[in-house]
């Protein structure tokens, strides 16, 4: 009869409200199988999303769907979201639900007896005291338009109100607890009957008045801390506001970009040296050539400091070669292992991703200093990368066929073992 179906329209009403008003803490009372929460979890202005229902089994049914998606871990956002599910009755108080920006109860109150309804208003408006409450309930006047309906729309309904009944209850509550209320609805009546019948679902949007008459302290110290709900589920979404996550991703980004810069720099260097040197025969010569290069390269960072960023890309990347003194004597066999390429933090800073993640150069340095997998130069101004030893990745002819012994889902097929073509 309605398109989209009415229950979706009700949820969309809440979603639209959230989009517009951007509340940070949202609770859904009587959330059942968490359908509304599942829609709301994508709206990342929300930081805390809570669902309450008296039926724990129903809550459990779909709650896995509330967890983060795989991609939330791949690229965490800056938004922070925590979802909690409670089993409990809306006629009881729980301190964890106080001070929300938005509390919704979609098609809930008609399931309460009138006595419970009084309790409910006291709990929601007198105890939770949300900034906004959205309460929806069937409009009994519309029932005549529903084909084949006798009695209530659902066998568990304790009452179904006309617009006048709902409004008088709502206004009473609003007056009592210091709220203003606005009436609307979803599921309009057929053309021409809107005034006579109203919406199929009537909705009251309650807003707390700034000047509250009965201004008990919102989170008064005198109010006892009540925990009558049982926490069934809680999940925190990965977020870049979490320092560990942030560092992990920043470091990954830095290493990746540093490696890229190094690669570019080495290629430029190779291109330059190809002109002067013909063919490097053995390790010794290459070493010498590199040392000579090192002197040249050393001059570069001063020549193109951070003040001259345009030049960075063209003339040089500000990288230079360095060596670890301590280890040099020990292993003359493979001198290249201990040579490093220094990538100044200032160069790294040019990556938009790095700068966005770290915020400032100081932060960047700070983060990297704490990270054991990153090697910084002594003054902390550059990231030290091992000079790629071309032969480091080479393989022993023997190991060739064992590549496929791997356990990964797509075993990497290695190239021919003796015929080093790939």
């Amino acid at each position, binding site marked *: 009869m309605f*398109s*989209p179906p009415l229950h979706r329209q009700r949820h969309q009403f809440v979603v639209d409200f959230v*989009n517009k008003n951007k509340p940070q803490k949202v609770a859904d009372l009587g959330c059942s199988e968490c359908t509304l929460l599942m*829609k709301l979890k*994508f*709206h*990342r202005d929300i930081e805390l999303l809570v669902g309450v229902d008296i039926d724990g089994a129903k809550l459990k049914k779909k709650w*896995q769907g509330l*967890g*983060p*998606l*795989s*991609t939330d*871990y*791949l*690229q965490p956002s800056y938004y922070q979201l925590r979802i909690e599910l409670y089993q409990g009755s809306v006629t009881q108080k729980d301190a964890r639900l106080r001070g929300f920006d938005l509390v919704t109860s979609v098609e809930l109150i008609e399931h309460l007896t009138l006595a419970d309804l009084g309790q409910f208003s006291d709990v929601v408006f007198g105890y939770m005291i949300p900034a906004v409450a959205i309460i929806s309930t069937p409009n009994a006047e519309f029932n005549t338009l529903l084909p084949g309906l006798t009695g209530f729309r659902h066998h568990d309904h304790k009452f179904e109100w006309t617009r006048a009944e709902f409004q008088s209850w709502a206004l009473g509550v609003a007056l009592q607890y210091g709220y203003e209320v606005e009436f609307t609805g979803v599921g309009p009546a057929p053309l021409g009957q809107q005034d006579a019948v109203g919406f199929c679902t009537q909705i009251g949007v309650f807003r707390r008045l700034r000047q509250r008459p009965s201004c008990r302290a919102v989170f008064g110290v005198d109010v006892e801390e009540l925990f009558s709900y049982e926490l069934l589920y809680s999940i925190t979404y*990965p977020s870049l506001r979490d320092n560990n996550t942030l560092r*992990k*991703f920043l*470091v*990954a*980004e*830095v*290493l*990746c970009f540093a*490696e890229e810069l190094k690669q570019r720099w080495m290629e430029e260097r190779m291109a330059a040296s190809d002109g002067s040197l013909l*063919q490097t*025969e*053995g390790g010794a010569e290459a070493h010498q050539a590199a040392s000579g290069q090192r002197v040249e390269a050393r001059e570069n960072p001063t020549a193109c400091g951070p003040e001259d960023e345009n030049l960075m890309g063209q003339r040089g990347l500000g990288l230079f070669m360095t060596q670890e003194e301590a280890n040099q004597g020990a292993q003359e066999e493979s001198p290249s292992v201990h040579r490093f390429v220094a990538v100044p933090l200032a160069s790294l800073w040019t990556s938009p991703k790095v700068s966005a993640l770290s915020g400032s150069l100081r932060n960047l340095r700070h983060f990297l200093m704490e990270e054991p997998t990153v090697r910084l130069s002594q003054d902390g101004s550059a990231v030290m990368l091992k000079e*790629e030893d*071309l*032969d*480091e*990745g*080479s393989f022993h*002819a*023997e*190991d*060739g*066929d*064992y*590549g*496929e*012994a*791997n*356990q*990964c*889902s*797509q075993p*990497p*097929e*290695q*190239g*021919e*073992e*003796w*015929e*080093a*073509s*790939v």
Partner: protein
Amino acid sequence: MDPNIPRKHSFMTGVPFLGRGRALQPQELALGRSRVLPATEAPRVGLARGFLPSDNTPPGRGVTLPVSQTVFGRARGLLSQLDVGEVAGRARGLLLPSLEPQVGLARGTLLTSLEPPPGRTPGSGATAQKPTETPSTKEVDLPDNDGTLVSMMRGIGVDPSMATWGRGNIPLGRGPAVDAGTVTIQAAPVGVTSNLESFGKPEEVMGRGSSFGARGLSLQTMAGLGRAAPPQLGPGRGRAVLCSLPQSPVKSSPVVAVEQQTALSVTSSATAPKPLELPASEPEDTAVKTEVVRESLNKTGTKGCPIEIASNHVPICCQNKAVYQYHVTFSPNVESMGMRFGMMKEHRPTTGEVVAFDGSILYLPMKLDDVALKSVRLTDQEEIQIQIRMTKILPPSSDLCLPFYNVVVRRVMKMLGLKLVGRNHYNPESAVILGKHRLQVWPGYATCIKHTDGGLYFCVDVSHKVLRNDSVLDVMNVLFQESKQNFHDECAKELVGSIVITRYNNRTYRIDDIEWDKSPNDTFPLMDGTKTTFVDYYHKNYGITIKEMNQPLLVHRPKERSKPGGKQIITGEILIVPELSFLTGIPEKMKSNMKLMKDLTMHINASSEQHTQSIGKLLKNISTKPECVKEFGRWGLKISSEILLMKGRTLPMENICMKSSSFSSGTDGRWSNKVVRDASISSVPLNNWAIFYAQRCAAEAEELSNVFIKLSGPMGVKVGRPRLVPMKNDYTDTYVKSIHAQVTSEPDLQLVVCIVTGNRDDLYGAIKKLCCVQNPIPSQVVNVRTISQPQKLKSVAQMILLQINGKLGGELWTVNVPLKLLMVVGVDVHHDATKRNRSVMGFVASMNSALTRWYSRVTFQGPGQEVIDGFRECFVEALRQYYEVNHSFPEKIVVYRDGVSEGQVAMVEQFEIPQLIKCFQNIGNYEPKMVFILVQKRINTTLYTRVSNTFSTPPPGTILDHTLTKRDWVDFYLLAHSIRHGCGVPTHYICLYNTVNLPVDHLQRLTFKMCHLYWNFPGTVRVPAPCKYAHKLAYLAGQYLRAQPALQLADKLFFL
């Protein structure tokens, strides 16, 4: 049968059905099995020794196919189809799935009944409701009135107490009447069967011990009695298999074919069961039957030293006695599956909370007496009667239960907070970020519940998922920077075939195409018919703002499949926004990056110890989470806290034979240092060869040729000075032109060696294409990187020299295989990941008894083409070649067939093997014996060995041939290679056909021997060398050549 359906349904054509019968006699543990297989082609094929030429059976007449033979392993009377009408191909191989056998317990407590075929509409199923019909009758409508049917039954019998076994094949054919076309066939399962009325007789049969009687239970409303034919007696223990076919309502006489087969060891006296008279009517109350767990085939060998083995399987204890299967009928019929589910849901108070329901078949862990329920259809207020009738009592380990057990497993994995990516579950919380490569590695598990010979197991494989940090859009941007001209092509190359996951759901999609003409601003229709743009849709539903408007869309084309239970078919494309999707898996480009792969494998290749620890962690997580334990408990499952421990064997080491010496393969299965100390069996003198290199690699080229000459003496190869061909640059074109010029000007040239720099796939491909297709000549490509280290040069050059010798037709080493006139065949298939190119089958066959000469062929298959077409062609060619070399045909042929997916096993058995056998016919008077073994490398079974409470990888040659083996096959797991990193994934071998009568021990050892013969690696390899060669050949042909290599090279291992 549904009362609403007119009776004429039963006058339709009967169909052969798959029946599987077994009987379990408590004292004797005798069991039998039968199978009915339909065939497609008219010629009849007897797969056992007697190979029968095709003939057309006169309609209406019975045919008897007696095939008898002594077989170890499995014999099979391959069935055929009788072409009855004049029209060939009229026959239809109809197979009704899962008709369960009748099973009788010795004491006659037997219940027989019919299991309604799942998925059938109530209207045509449920014949058992008619008291006059036999429980095992199936009737289906056929479009034409005369059907021709043949069914074949295969029976097996096992007497575990004697440790001998055998399997009988019963080809059972029937020629139905042509004129009438109403046939009902009933194939009775082999097995000890008894029923209330004929109770005495079966008992008598069983009294003789290990004998089997099989009967066709046939009841006809009109004709009545079925007939039973007495079996032929074979030597040894007699096993009588009786089958009978009912008479069809029209005049046609049934055909009975009985084949009898004996077990290997001839022990007890033969017993001939008496033909059983069938009761004229079946009691009505035998509607429920009990499925009993079958005993496993005898497939255990004895050779080798015992070793304690553990596996990644966790025993499951079934606490419930049974799972009950019910048939649910809605009357009047309810078409909508959703409505059926809804109505069943209303009756949870009756059925309990634990249900598995597919729309018509219902499984419950508890017993319900037949119940009739009522529901009201909401659409029209009509009252619907729901009848729930028990059809079967299943053991909790029944295969029918596995699907919903696996649902339980998935639910539990979710409860543990693991994320589903593709089919496996991963833990992103403990992801390893490989920053340098913009990759993440997520640890996780691939889990399932399996039923093997040892019972029910929870199989946990440690799995790792590699994911990209970047969205597909980021990847595209990088590609754009790199190549602006070929951007579209580059994107297609990089992306098509990859799997992506999206930002807004947890699904994975395979990219099949890129839609360059679309953008997120384009619209698509919603369910309700309205149209919306991608931008709006994602903003409205997921709060996601698409930033880049100028991006193409990715296309995913789902495979055609119907929604569960419904008729609706999912088709059409799915469009995905690159910005909102992430690539999974290792990027193609990075696979050639040694450093990256090293980094990756470090994380991915968990050792046995890490493996067992991580499995242990999962088991602990499950057992400490009450809701997980409860979830399993709903079906009475209890997961053990320890992985499975059992006894395996390590096969003896093999002797590697070279020209003048032989040595043991060693405990680590490697002989790289020994192989260069002695001369190869035969070497081709290398007098006339050339090295091609770019000018800058002159020194390396010179050095390499010097080293070759220096090393050649001790290795027994004669190597002359090469022609050095320097080139001014290293462009692909330069190489191709130089080589072409050299080869054409010097027809005697034996070998082309190319020294190349960097990872040059295109160059490699061009060289190989030239040297394998256009100007056939053995070629060797060497990367300058591998020979530029002086300290490693010697060992690298030795290996290259061996490889070159192999390519030229030299023989490096062998092992002794004590089988005369043997031909070993290896087959593998290479599929292109992007699905753009044709699949390639590589085929390799041995040409001499030392297994040192190989003949190779390649065939390409177009989409939808079966492997077998090319296979047969290669096979005939190889036989011809063998004859030319040896002046006789091979007496025994062993085929190792790789590249078969799990679902294709039956296809291979039913079609591929008969087709191969058909090849022999083309050669007059030639009946070789054959073994056909499937090779499966990608399995999720891992083996560990336990030494003083720590787990490590088992040594090469470890065999496991029980407990984890498949119930339906003779199979074994062999870990042939030695493992330095990672853990031990064995290769699974399934022997589908064995007329050589190779005992299990020999089968296993032959396979292990074959793993020693791969000349590119002086050590044991995972799969038999012929498979490995076939793999390498198929890869080369599919990846680089994209064409048939020149036939001149077919007798050499040019692809090494």
